[in-house]
């Protein structure tokens, strides 16, 4: 029943009917606002960014297949808009042409990747504590950034096994890191 009504909602939204649009807005207004304000840390601009995401949603010509597609569109739109906003400021962003826009995104992505290396080290340290097989799989996954198929080929295991090892390893890794994190917070508490 819920699936049906969400289908009706999407259908109504595709025809841009007032009630459906208003329902979609009710459903995701807080979501987009939360996202924008978490990403840009500035409320007035977060308000604008969230509103612009809804306008972009309405102006999109293609039909949406599901309510998740609508949410996905909003997510990507807010994310990219906030990214541009932080890199270039609102006014600069509007003047950027399409090509420059894509180029900066790629460059920023690379810079982001480099900064990630710092905490990547912590993950690698924790992986050391895992059993040999799981460790091998996660090392290849995080360090060499191989996908499941490539890992399976490298280690001579089936893809199923690799994916099981990986999800199992991720769970253990989380447990290890949370355990050490707790002591970390206690230290933090003692220090303050």
């Amino acid at each position, binding site marked *: 029943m819920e699936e049906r009504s969400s289908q009706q909602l999407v259908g109504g939204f595709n025809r*841009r009917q007032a009630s459906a649009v208003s329902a979609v807005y009710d459903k995701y*207004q807080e979501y987009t606002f939360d996202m924008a304000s978490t990403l840009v840390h500035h409320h007035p601009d977060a308000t604008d960014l969230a509103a612009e995401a809804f306008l972009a949603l309405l102006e999109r010509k293609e039909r949406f297949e599901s309510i998740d597609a609508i949410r996905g569109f909003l997510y990507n739109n807010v994310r990219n808009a906030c990214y541009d906003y932080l890199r270039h400021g609102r006014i600069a962003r509007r003047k950027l042409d399409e090509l420059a826009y894509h180029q900066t995104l790629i460059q920023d992505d690379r810079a982001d990747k480099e900064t*990630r290396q710092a905490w*990547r080290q*912590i993950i690698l340290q924790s992986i050391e504590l895992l059993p040999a097989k799981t460790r091998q799989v996660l090392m290849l996954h995080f360090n060499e950034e191989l996908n499941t198929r490539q890992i399976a080929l490298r280690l001579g295991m089936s893809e199923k096994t690799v994916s099981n090892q990986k999800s199992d390893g991720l769970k253990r890794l*989380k447990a290890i890191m949370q355990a050490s*994190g707790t002591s970390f917070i206690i230290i933090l508490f003692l220090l303050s």
Partner: protein
Amino acid sequence: MNEPFHIRELVFKYNQHELGPEDEIELLAWRRLSPENELYFQEEISPARREAVRQAAAAVKESNYRRIVAEYPLQPDEAPVIRLPRKWVFRIAGCLLGAVVLYKILTFDLDRLTGGSKPAVMEARFTNAQGIEQSLEDIKNGFNDGRAARQRDKARRKMPFLAAPYDTSAATRGFNTMVTYEHGRYLMQLPDESYCWQNVNSSVAYPVNFFRDTPKLRVTGEVFIELPRKSDLPPFEVSTGKISITAFATVRFSVRAYPKDSAVTITAVEGQIQVKSDSSVIMLQPKEQLTLSHGKAILHKDVDIEKVLAWKTN
């Protein structure tokens, strides 16, 4: 920007419970990188901060919506269409079908199987030359000279049909008589393949040995006669009271002569007919109507044929 953009995204996902297992580990690792990171994270997920975001979102909700709607015109809502699930359409159709079948069973006329003992309103009566009444059903079943095959065609005229019986060996100059009552109209096909529509309360008498004697119909009440489209037939005579009508091939005409009217009306629909009364002989052209009353004859031209023949279709 103190925290990488990617981490802010992960924090948002954390608050929305959308964090994947790998995202989770990445966020955990980042938190462990420095106490500031952990503090930032704790602040971002704190109930007070969540509540502040909720309130800020609620505060701009209305004004933002007005802004969006002002920039993008929306379509008015369509009237809600009530669509039944397919399953229910079949169920309802099944119930209706069942109800119709049940109704048919309950109201089934047993008399039709047992031969009909139900007293019916007398519609018409057929009397032969000896004055003996004959059942119309018997005539229909027992008399078949090939004309019955045409019944299907004539049945479209929605009137009970009778192929008039005759006897070429009859020595007498008797007449068969077909009488209709208050509720009966009948279409009779005469042996020469002419048709005679009889309105209610009318009688038509025709010679038993139709082909030997001059075809002469005695009529009271109202009839409409259609002669066959053949040119080699003898003149066709209809008499009512002291008036006689003579028609030749390809003629359609109606006669209305109810005794209570004290007037006789003759209307030619197609072809010429000759009307002979005590005092005059008149030729009627198509769409002409002659009314004879108390020895006076009135001729109407261009009459409305459909109005005259309305009883035939009703």
